[in-house]
């Protein structure tokens, strides 16, 4: 399953809830979009949580959203970047998709 989170981890607990569920399962991917790209910031309080699930799932961030927010040079190593085309590919590749709202 592809999990999509679009809210900043500092704004609400959506990312936490998503990580709690995907951290307990294997396989799949997490895509950070919109304000959730802040979760991909190196040195933030969330970095450890992102790294902790990276063994279970592939973590992606939507590049246009990172760039828009000026965060493109501050990302955690290992987070992969995709554009909207890559976003489409991710949805196609996984058998299902869930947006955490």
């Amino acid at each position: 399953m592809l999990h999509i989170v679009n809210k900043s981890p500092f704004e609400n607990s959506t990312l936490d809830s998503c990580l709690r569920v995907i951290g307990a399962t294997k396989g799949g991917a997490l895509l950070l979009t919109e304000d959730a790209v802040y979760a991909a910031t190196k040195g933030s309080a969330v970095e450890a949580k992102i790294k902790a699930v990276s063994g279970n799932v592939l973590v992606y961030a939507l590049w246009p959203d990172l760039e828009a927010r000026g965060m493109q040079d501050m990302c955690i190593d290992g987070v992969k970047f995709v554009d909207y085309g890559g976003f489409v590919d991710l949805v196609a590749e996984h058998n299902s998709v869930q947006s955490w709202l």
Partner: protein
Amino acid sequence: MKFGIMVNEGPYTHQATDTAYMFAKAALEKGHEVPRVFFYHDGVNNSSSLTDPPQDDRNIVNRWSKLAEDHGVDLVVCVAAAMRRGITEGNLAAGFRISGLGQLVEAGIQADRLVVFGD
């Protein structure tokens, strides 16, 4: 692949409708189909013919209308959500139609993937 899309938030206040549009556009450019976009909750406001954003900013409503015109995307606005929020046939932008929640369920059944954009 057929992508169904659900948009749960209105124009400008949330980025959801922008992300949904960019996703739809990218999917079409890659040769996929986007048979239907279903607008729910405040998402129905994406269909208002009364919006008048600044000239130097994207026109979200028109952008959706153009997608319908150029690619035959079925833009469906939920009747119950629309009635709550004052969207009627009288102020519906081009390319949109008002219909029931069954259209969303049908999109889920018929599409290969249903992607939801919201808050």
